[in-house]
Structure formats: C-alpha cells, structure tokens
C-alpha cells in the first residue's frame, strides 16, 4: 500500500482571512488539521521598549495602535495604571465619559468583528451594514478628539476635554446634497449627547437586522455550531478572558467583578454561553452590543444631568488651561515643565486591567521614580487566545481554521505589540 504522509501548508501572512499578518503553519492530513503553529511577531514594533525612552504621557498615543479596533480601552488600562501609581483621583464626570467611550469602543470592536467574521464565512451583506454603524460612532471619536481612530483622548487625571456642545455636521458636497444631506445630518442638529441618544434609540433595531441575517441562518449555523469548542477548564488554563471565557459559560467580567471607571453606577447584564463553540461566542458578542448600547444610554442621561470638571486640578499632572497660562507665571512654569520633562511617578509597580472588548487588557508598569516608565508590559487578550490555537484547531477541518481565527477576534497590533 502506498504510504500517504501529512503535508504542511502556509496560511498567510498574506491571506485575507488571516486578519492581518498571521502566518499559520498547518500540518494537514487530507483536509484535517493535525497541528497548527502560528508564527506571530510580523507586526512587532517594540511598543514596550519605546515607552521606556519617553515621558509617560507621550506613550498614550501608542496604546491606540495596539489593538487598533478598540483604541480607547487600551488607553484606559495605561492611564489607570499611571493614576494608581500617582494616587490621583479622577473626577466623576471624566469617569463616566470614559465608561461611555469604553462602551462605544466595545460596539465598534464587535461590529468590526461581526462584519469581518461573517465575511470570512461567506456573508457579504453584514460587513456593509456593520461599517455603516461604525461610521456613526467613529464620528463621536472624531468629535471629542479630532481623530477617527487613534484618539489619545484619555489622560492621566481625566480626559483631554469635555464633550462638544455641537455635533459636527456634514457639509454639502457633490455626493451629499439636498435630501441626502438632510438625512445624514438629521441626528446632528444638537450636541453629541443628542446624537448618541438618537443613535442608541436606533441601534437595537440594527442589531435585530444583523440577527435576522445570521442567527437562524442555516449556513452560518453549519459553519459555527460545534466548531472550536472550548471547555471551561481549557478556557481557564489558557488564560482566556472576555467573550472567550464567557462563551464557555464562566461568568467573569471585570466591569462587574472588579469595577473601574463608573461601571458600578450603571445597570447591565453579562451574557454567557453554554457550549463554548463559535456560535455561542457569536451570541455573547451580539448580546454584549445590546448591553453596551444600554450602558451608553444611561451614561448619556447621567452626563446631561451632571456637568463638572473632566480633569484633575493638579498642575503637577495635568496642564493648566492655556488662558490661565498666558496670565499666570506659575501656570506657565507648570505648563513648560509638564511638556518638556513630564511628571515623575513615584517608585513602585502596578498592574491595571480593563475589560476590553476582546478580554482582559492590562498594563503593568514598574516605576523607579523617573519621568519615564522603567518597564511597561502590556497584557493583550489576543496573545493568550491565539496561543491556544494548536489545541483548539487540532482535529478540525481546514475551513474551520478561518472560523477559529475569526472567533478568537485576533488583532495583530496587540498580539505583536
């Protein structure tokens, strides 16, 4: 009898379903995966080492570029770590704004995940729908920070500035005019909070739309039910967090268990899965979008009722207003020292984690009293998830690997750092 040997193929790094630059070396027996060896690091930029050579504040912008579909959550972990070391208390309004933007970010991330994962598995429409809603939320990013993605909006001590009183509008152009212009500007007549109100009223209907396309879709279920089953024991042993852990039926959410920002103020539920397969994780993420929408609504109501400062009044950490700087010598000195030298953080170490859309994103800082971190370690959820690839993928068919990469929700900005 002729001997048939396994053969090895390269999946990526230039494969559209590899979600970036994953090189996956697969050992196949026919179409069955016998061994999966992900090669990561093609996007390694040494963020942690770069941070060691810069004052603390100058690295906030790098955080956006780690998990580049959930930007502000990364910033949140980093600034929280600095705040804990400095011992500064963040004003309440800033905490609620952070909660608001963390949840906006969660929806942004899950929309991206839903759209691209569905596209990988053969559903085109959803991708276009998801990007339609992402656009609205990115406008919120732009309204507060000036950048659609890499916001650098959170700062140690609060957020950079208060929410804008006027939501920016589309201007007339050859492509948007007349009736179209009126339609796209319909929500934008008032403040950003009005805009978010309109968005949150509308969004549940949109999620229903996505669910109509997928939840009972036969092809979708054939591709996801029973695929990539992660048992609760496996999820714990592999350090999985976020929807990966909750999909396996473990109710663990840092927003509830170790509350930060203003999450203890608001009501929300934690969806969990039952079977730990791709389909359950899909359901968990969709429900999380609904819950995030609910939190955003509550945040908007709170922010309307409670004006106040959004940054600590401590000039050793946060810069004074420019207006003040022009008239006050002391304010000028503070301003100058902050932007040339930065602030020195007392020696010590801290690990601060947030429930990012993909799981637990943590920043571990070792400070030695200098104006730059001695060591910064960023704990990316995707890194732990992808490391389980071999164990989860073995025994699956080749096309299921695509479903698995999708369900892990990998983004190489954070995995390679």
């Amino acid at each position: 009898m002729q001997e048939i040997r396994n053969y090895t193929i390269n999946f990526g790094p230039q494969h559209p379903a590899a979600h970036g630059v994953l090189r996956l070396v697969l050992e196949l027996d026919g179409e069955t995966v016998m061994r999966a060896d992900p090669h990561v690091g093609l996007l390694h930029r040494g963020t942690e080492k770069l941070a060691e050579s810069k004052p603390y504040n100058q690295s906030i912008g790098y955080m956006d570029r780690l998990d580049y579909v959930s930007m502000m959550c990364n910033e949140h972990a980093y600034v929280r770590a600095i705040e804990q070391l400095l011992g500064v208390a963040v004003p309440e309004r800033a905490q609620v704004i952070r909660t608001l933007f963390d949840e906006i970010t969660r929806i942004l991330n899950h929309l991206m995940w839903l759209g691209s994962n569905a596209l990988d598995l053969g559903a085109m429409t959803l991708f276009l729908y998801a990007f339609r809603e992402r656009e609205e939320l990115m406008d919120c990013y732009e309204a507060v920070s000036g950048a659609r993605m890499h916001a650098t909006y959170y700062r140690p001590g609060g957020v950079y500035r208060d929410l804008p009183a006027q939501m920016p509008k589309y201007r007339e152009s050859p492509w948007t005019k007349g009736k179209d212009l009126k339609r796209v500007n319909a929500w934008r007549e008032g403040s950003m909070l009005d805009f978010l109100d309109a968005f949150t009223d509308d969004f549940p209907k949109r999620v229903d739309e996505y669910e109509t396309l997928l939840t009972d879709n036969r092809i979708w279920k054939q591709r996801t039910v029973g695929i990539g089953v992660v048992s609760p024991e496996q999820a714990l042993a592999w350090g999985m967090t976020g929807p990966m852990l909750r999909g396996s039926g473990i109710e663990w959410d840092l927003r509830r268990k170790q509350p930060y920002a203003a999450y203890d103020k608001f009501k929300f539920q934690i969806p969990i899965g039952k079977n730990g397969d791709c389909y359950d994780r899909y359901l968990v993420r969709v429900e999380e979008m609904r819950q995030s929408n609910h939190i955003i609504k509550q945040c908007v109501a709170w922010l309307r009722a409670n004006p106040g400062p959004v940054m600590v009044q401590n000039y050793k950490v946060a810069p004074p207003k420019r207006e003040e700087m022009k008239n006050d010598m002391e304010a000028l000195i503070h301003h100058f020292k902050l932007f040339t030298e930065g602030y020195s953080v007392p020696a010590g170490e801290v690990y601060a984690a947030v429930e990012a859309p993909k799981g637990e994103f943590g920043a571990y800082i070792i400070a030695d009293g200098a104006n730059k971190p001695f060591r910064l370690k960023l704990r990316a959820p995707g890194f732990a998830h992808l490391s389980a690839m071999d164990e989860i993928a073995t025994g699956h068919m080749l096309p299921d690997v695509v479903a698995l990469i999708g369900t892990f929700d990998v983004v190489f900005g954070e995995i390679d750092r």
Partner: protein
Amino acid sequence: MSDSEIRFSDRLRERFADQILRVIDSVDGPTVEIKTECWLEVARALRDEAEFRFEQAVDLCGVDYLGFGEAEWDTSDVSGEGFSRGVEGFGPGRFNWSERPEAAHKEQRYAVVVHLLSLAHNRRVRIRCFAPDEGLPVVASLVGLWRGLNWFEREAFDLFGILFEGHPDLRRILTDYGFVGHPFRKDFPLIGNVEVRYDAEKQRVIYEPVSIEPRVGVPRVVRDDARYDQARSESAARAAGK
C-alpha cells in the same frame, strides 16, 4: 490596599515563610518575591490550595533591572548643569550597538513576574523570582501548571534571554527569523542593530547595519519631591469629602 488585602499578604508571609524572600505591599495588592529554587513549588501551592486557588495566570513577563533608578540629569541640588546636558547622557535609547554598555554586574538583574488571578476569591497576586546567573538566567517553567503561559515564556525568552527549564518548545516568538540578541535588555540599543530593505538588483530582501542615529529627546529625570504627597493628600481629602 484594603484591609482584606493586608490580611491576605500576612497570610502569604505565614504560609510561605521559608520559601519566599519577602512580600511587598504594592498599591494594587501584594507582590511576593519567591526564592528561585522554590518558584515552581510555590506557584503550584498558589494554584491548588483551596485558600488561594489562582486558576488563571493572566500574564508573565521578563524584567531587566539594569540601571534601575538611575537618572541622566541630577535635580537633587542646584547645579550649573542645564537641562540640555541631560541629552548627552547615556541612558536607555541613547547608544548604538558598538557603544552599548558592557553588561555591568548587577545582583539580581533579570526577573520573571507573573500575575495570577483567582476567579473563586476574586483576587490578584503578583509573584516574582530573580534569575540567579546573569550570564545565563534560568528559571523553572510554569507551563506545566498553566498551559497558557507557553507563549508568555517564549516571549520572555525571546526579549530577555531568560531560559525556562522544562518548557516544551522554547523558540523565539516576536522577533524576526534569525534575529541575534535579546532586544528588551537594557543594554540593547533602542535603534536596533540591523535594518531591512528590498534590493532591486539582487532581487531579494537584504539586511544591513542600521543607518539611523540614536535620538531621545527628553532626559531621564528622577524626582522625589513633595508634589506627590500633595497630590495624594488632595485625593484623600476629596475621598473623605464624598
């Protein structure tokens, strides 16, 4: 730290008395420094014993303590040295490969830090152990206890050159194929060592020595003045006012 955390760190001191160096009360909870030879043993106890039950190892990272607490610009006294003098310092990121500081001997230079999480008790702990021989730092691997640490240990090996004894597959993970050196060591230049480009004549990607200059704008300054006490008392006053 809250009362329950202080009780917990006392409990850690009691339970592991002769296996640990010390327990530090950090702002976010206890940090346990474990003797290198007891690393695996203590980690196993932390995972299995009912009062600890740290089911998850959230993170593992290497640390290089070379140059810890050193500044480039002395601010402790009045001096004739201006801020710009600091720029001529020799701190991290300011040297290239040929000028890199020859590894100054430092006791306890490399360390491995692990963050553990107990879902059952909703508690975190940080454990650290120093790698004894700085020429060839070796620490026991924890992959047998938490499978998920596999890649984290590979990363620490790749970036710091810390060897994990008993690791099933200790390959480089983040750096390039065929990379030389361990880039996160403090004596590795920030600008790196080689650069890559596509050579149109040779029709392939080639490696060359780096052409960029080291450039770090802001000097490393260590300040230990009253401002943080002030910030802390302000925040305490605010908390008391609530």
